[in-house]
């Protein structure tokens, strides 16, 4: 993968982190209410997966979907305005944090009833298969969601009819306060797919490049018409389940271990920056080449560090702009609400 693509992924991860942390702040200020499920810690999954998708692919997501929407191209302004409940939000202030929709970008929605994403994805995939289109559906769900009946029901149908669905499990090890070993007899989600003969693998969800690679391969196989695939990404959420949940049921050491060792943003930064040769390597290269190489790398390194800072500053600006935009956007009216409800009525006049 070229560096531009890596930088684009890093950019989206930085945006994801900054946006979500800002949303948390706006929540405590009272600008956002209701259930607010944030994504810090899990960025590599949404970014890696969605960067490997085509614009024509469909995305079906859960209530923890701000980042999925933004990486898909929904403007941060439209997402923030939706969190604020304003008319310029991507769901016109009717849906809020858990129900982001963007038809144009094939972002088919955030669903807040656990287990809803599978059948919706299967239905879209059925349409694609019937019409013999080259598209695919990406279906997100959590580790807790695999115990809903719709999981097996949908996997069976998808496999039976060879539907183009990529099932993506964001395994953050928790179903609110219940740790995976207390909610699942088989804690390796990918193993469940074999019951339906669906190819599946488990991938480190803290490593954006690994996520991207696995997704690209899975989508390529899906597009060959071989039916669904399942990827399980092991990840971790740094915050509580939602802003209403302090997350105190998790051992401190566990949270710290993930934050320190495996923060996917740090990992991604590491992966975009050029690696510096050690002093020994430079010395081993000989005087002349050492000098040239050292100069080149130093310059390159400096440039990268500065570029990273610049990128971060740009992102802070985007997030700030999104908040300003959301604050200025008007509230929807009851007429707007009725229009949304009756959007499919057309000219028909009911009695």
């Amino acid at each position, binding site marked *: 993968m070229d560096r531009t693509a890596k930088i684009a992924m890093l950019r989206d991860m930085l945006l994801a982190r900054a946006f979500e942390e800002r949303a948390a702040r706006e929540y405590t200020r009272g600008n956002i209410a209701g259930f607010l499920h944030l994504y810090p810690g899990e960025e590599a999954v949404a970014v890696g997966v969605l960067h490997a998708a085509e614009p024509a692919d469909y995305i079906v997501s859960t209530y923890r979907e701000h980042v999925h929407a933004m990486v898909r191209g929904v403007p941060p302004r439209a997402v923030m305005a939706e969190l604020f409940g304003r008319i310029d939000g991507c769901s016109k202030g009717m*849906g809020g944090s858990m129900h982001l929709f963007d038809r144009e970008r094939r972002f088919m929605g955030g669903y807040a*009833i656990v287990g809803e994403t599978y059948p919706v994805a299967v239905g879209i995939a059925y349409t694609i298969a019937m019409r013999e289109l080259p598209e695919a559906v990406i279906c997100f769900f959590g580790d807790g969601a695999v115990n809903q009946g719709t999981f097996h029901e949908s996997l069976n149908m998808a496999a039976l009819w060879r539907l183009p669905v990529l099932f993506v499990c964001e395994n953050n090890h928790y179903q609110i306060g219940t740790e995976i070993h207390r909610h699942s007899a088989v804690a390796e989600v990918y193993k469940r797919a074999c019951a339906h003969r669906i190819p599946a693998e488990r991938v480190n969800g803290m490593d954006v490049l690994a996520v991207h690679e696995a997704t690209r391969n899975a989508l390529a196989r899906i597009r060959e018409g071989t039916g669904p695939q399942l990827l399980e990404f092991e990840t971790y959420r740094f915050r509580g389940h939602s802003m209403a949940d302090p997350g105190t049921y998790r051992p401190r050491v566990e949270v710290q271990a993930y934050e320190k060792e495996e923060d996917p943003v740090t990992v991604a930064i590491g992966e975009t920056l050029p690696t510096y040769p050690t002093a020994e390597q430079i010395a081993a290269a000989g005087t002349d080449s050492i000098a040239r190489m050292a100069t080149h790398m130093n310059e390159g390194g400096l440039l990268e560090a500065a570029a990273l800072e610049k990128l971060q500053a740009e992102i802070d600006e985007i997030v700030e702009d999104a908040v300003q935009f959301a604050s200025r956007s008007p509230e929807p*009216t009851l007429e707007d609400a009725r229009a949304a409800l009756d959007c499919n009525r057309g000219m028909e006049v009911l009695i």
Partner: protein
Amino acid sequence: MANEVLYWQALNQALDAEMAADDSVFVLGEDVGLYGGSYRVTEGLYVKYGEWRVRDTPISEGSFTGLGVGAALAGMRPVVEIMTINFSLLALDAIVNMAAKIPFMSGGQFPMPLVVRMPGGVAKQLAAQHSQRLEQMYMNVPGLRVAVPATPQDAWWQLRQAIRTDEPIVLLEHELLYFSKGMLDTDAEAPPMHRAAVRREGQDLTIVTYSRMVDLSLRAADRLAADGISAEVVDLRSLRPIDWDTCARSVEKTHYLLVVEEDSRFAGAGAEVAATLAERCFFSLDAPPARHGGLEMPTPYNATLEAASIPTVTSIEQAVRKLLEPLPQGEQR
């Protein structure tokens, strides 16, 4: 002795009392154990009674509610907590097709001492999928009972009664009531589980309501009293069966009926109340029964619209004034 408690604490004490009294009582649901319940209702029970009696479940509403049915058939008294009423839609088969039908279909062989507890209603900007009031759905199922406690005292009484009866009971708890305060007298004798309560006596009209709308109706009645309008407020406490005698007695006294519900009006709980009381009290009524409910739309996320979509103290007050407004000569309602 009476103590001031929060609604969730009353429920918690009721569970504790019943679990202590009868080891066939056990609770199950998502995050009811280690976490202590989303609204703290099961707090402390996991430590006290252990994981077999306070079971954290996977997100499998259909099957863990069905598990409750099976356990009830085998002689247990399960209390299933469905995290919110919205998710009970996934458990409808267990509740409607199984719990409500098995005692009947088996020719009366089986008890069904199943309690399914679920918070519901419009809370604070939880959006359309998490702000539903589906009581009419359960009201329409013969074989089920539906209780709607509005106070900590009723929460305590009705949950204990629900656990003790052999019929399946859906207990609807309002999300905004969990942290409301009220007096709880654990020694006071309970009225029958489905007896309605006259919360405020009045002469000029009857407001029949339930759950969170009781408090709002009482506050509207206070305001109306300042204007010389005396409203009687009846809290149904149970939606299936409904205590028609208490309602009819009130309507026969006041001659006017307003039904207040948080749910949208169309085919809602209020429709049943208005229709039956119109039949029963037709000749006592000075005006057709009126219904005041939520707007006919899913709950919007936006706070202003959300507030506008359900009754408020002011809108209840207005509905009363409209009902009592003298009509111009010769005009009909």
